[in-house]
């Protein structure tokens, strides 16, 4: 399962709407040039490009992500693009990437399944001076040395913003339950720590009474919430670390005879289903995590091969949906 599991997806949504925007904050930070990294300038159009997807294209986020890479490549006239998919098996992703390096790709775009365990890949890549752009999840290594740059959201920040929304909708007090993502996944870790720290800071009166994994899946989210509602009937808020679990939780709330708004639900992703839930009044807020990495990735690559410096950390600014904008922005959710 993916942390970005979504409901009825629209990979075809116009890139213009909900296109990724670089957060102004990160500009002016450390940069990287082709001289620092090594390698030779070349024209992206004729270059051999490899994209390694981490999980099955079985959910909106992954579908949108892969699609946006392919679309952008086509748009730029990049003919030589290979894509592989690791089906959530980390070892497979490693050998997928190594295999692409063997076959002589000149640019690697990787959506890592895991933040650690990339030593062998880095060894191979740096030997051949293949620039690596990692998207959506960061790799724990040195940018501009092991890999070129990271493009993606700040998951801790997402958790933080979710916490703010939760505090706001609860009036800074109450009991909250967390539906954790898949264990051992750094997205889970960051979205949890970000949320908890912020709650502790802004609303110490909010008690986190319950944390159980819903594996980023709707069914598990529903099951866990059903149990939760039995053992803690007085729960006030539920924080879903992705929309899927939140939607499952909402189904559970309905099943338990709750009314919309009785329990405040906040989640992360920004899929259509979740935004719709805001419109229907079941969810209070949704923090977006934007999957459309194509344009930004290739723009960065072009700058790099053109000899211009590129940021070592391209953090995109994620939108967020609330009562105010949900209806309006529903169309541009993925």
């Amino acid at each position, binding site marked *: 399962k993916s942390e970005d599991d979504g409901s009825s997806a629209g990979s075809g949504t116009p890139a213009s709407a909900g296109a990724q925007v670089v957060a102004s904050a990160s500009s002016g930070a450390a940069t990287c040039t082709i001289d620092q990294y090594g390698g030779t300038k070349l024209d992206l159009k004729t270059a051999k490009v490899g994209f390694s997807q981490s999980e099955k294209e079985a959910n909106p986020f992954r579908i949108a992500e892969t699609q946006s890479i392919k679309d952008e490549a086509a748009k730029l006239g990049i003919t030589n693009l290979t894509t592989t998919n690791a089906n959530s098996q980390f070892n497979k992703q490693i050998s997928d990437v190594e295999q692409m390096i063997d076959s002589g790709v000149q640019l690697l775009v990787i959506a890592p399944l895991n933040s650690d365990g990339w030593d062998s890949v880095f060894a191979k890549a740096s030997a051949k001076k293949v620039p690596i752009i990692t998207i959506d999840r960061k790799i724990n290594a040195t940018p501009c040395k092991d890999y070129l740059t990271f493009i993606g959201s700040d998951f801790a920040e997402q958790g933080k913003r979710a916490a703010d929304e939760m505090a706001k909708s609860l009036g800074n007090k109450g009991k909250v339950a967390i539906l954790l993502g898949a264990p051992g996944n750094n997205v889970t870790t960051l979205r949890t720590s970000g949320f908890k720290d912020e709650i502790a800071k802004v609303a110490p009166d909010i008690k986190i009474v319950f944390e159980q994994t819903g594996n980023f899946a709707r069914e598990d989210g529903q099951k866990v919430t*059903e149990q939760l509602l039995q053992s803690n009937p007085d729960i006030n808020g539920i924080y879903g670390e992705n929309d899927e679990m939140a939607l499952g939780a909402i189904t559970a709330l309905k099943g338990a005879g709750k009314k919309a708004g009785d329990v405040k639900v906040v989640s992360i992703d920004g899929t259509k289903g979740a935004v719709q839930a805001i419109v229907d009044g079941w969810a209070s807020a949704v923090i977006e995590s934007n999957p459309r990495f194509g344009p930004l990735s290739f723009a960065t690559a072009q700058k790099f091969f053109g000899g211009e410096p590129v940021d070592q950390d391209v953090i995109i600014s994620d939108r967020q949906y609330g009562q105010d904008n949900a209806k309006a922005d529903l169309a541009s959710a993925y």
Partner: protein
Amino acid sequence: MTTQVAARPAVNLKGLSQYGVYLAILLLVLYNIFFTPYFLTWSNLRIQLIQVAPIVIVALGMALVIGTEGIDLSVGSVMALAAALIPLYLGYGVVAAILASLVAGVVVGLINGVLVARVGLQPIVATLALFVGGRGLAVVISEGKLKDVRNPDLIYLGSGDLLGIPVLVWIAAALVVVVAFLVRRTVFGRRLLAIGGNRPATELAGLPVKRVLITVYVLCAVLASIAGLLSVARIQSSDASAVGLLIELSAITAVVVGGTPLTGGKVRVLGTVAGALLMQLVIATMIKHNLQPSTTEMVQAVIILIAVYVARERKTR
């Protein structure tokens, strides 16, 4: 719950092995009554029953297969296929959708059955193929998209009540009765057990072994597809990549913990239900006490071992 009037003494031991599961459930319930707030409420019991229903349904089929000394790993993929087909045919109405998913079950069951009975593949491998391919196909069918289900009739199946009891539970109960009846009272059931007991002998005795085996695998797959469509109805959305993930292990565990030996020739239907309930209660207890997955998994391991140890075959032969 075997069809045999096993007239063998050492009753106390045998009794224990017969009723070990129920004993375990009793203990767990007692624990919860004392240490888990709000445990002894109808709404809680109701939730547990609803959540266990799909596993029970799958485990019933698994029990039949195991009774023939076989095993079926593909049940999860069958659930996925069923789930994937529902939204496609919901347009033609609930009945059409349900039929479509059942047909998927029949087809997979036929493939498994033929591979096992006619080609002579070992069940675990024969079903491994569909375990791998089936889910892939399901996701292909659903174009990897999770589809919301809004059809009220279908949703009624998943979350509606009948005489104060969830429809889901009624269906599961009905299926339990049917399967129990099948095993105890019908020619098919007797033959199934005999084949599990000694296949060459049943072949020489002129039983339609292949036909029975194929039927068993079809039944198992159909039950799985029922479980699949019910969980769609319950989650009110169809996610082929998620539904029924790893359920084959839960089902096998339920069957074996329920006292059905993997060596075939014996099927305990009620035991299977109890086995599923036991595992459900364990998980529920863990969640209610907000324990970490690591703890849950280790406790599950221990409970499985104890339950199976108590229920194991003591025959020296």
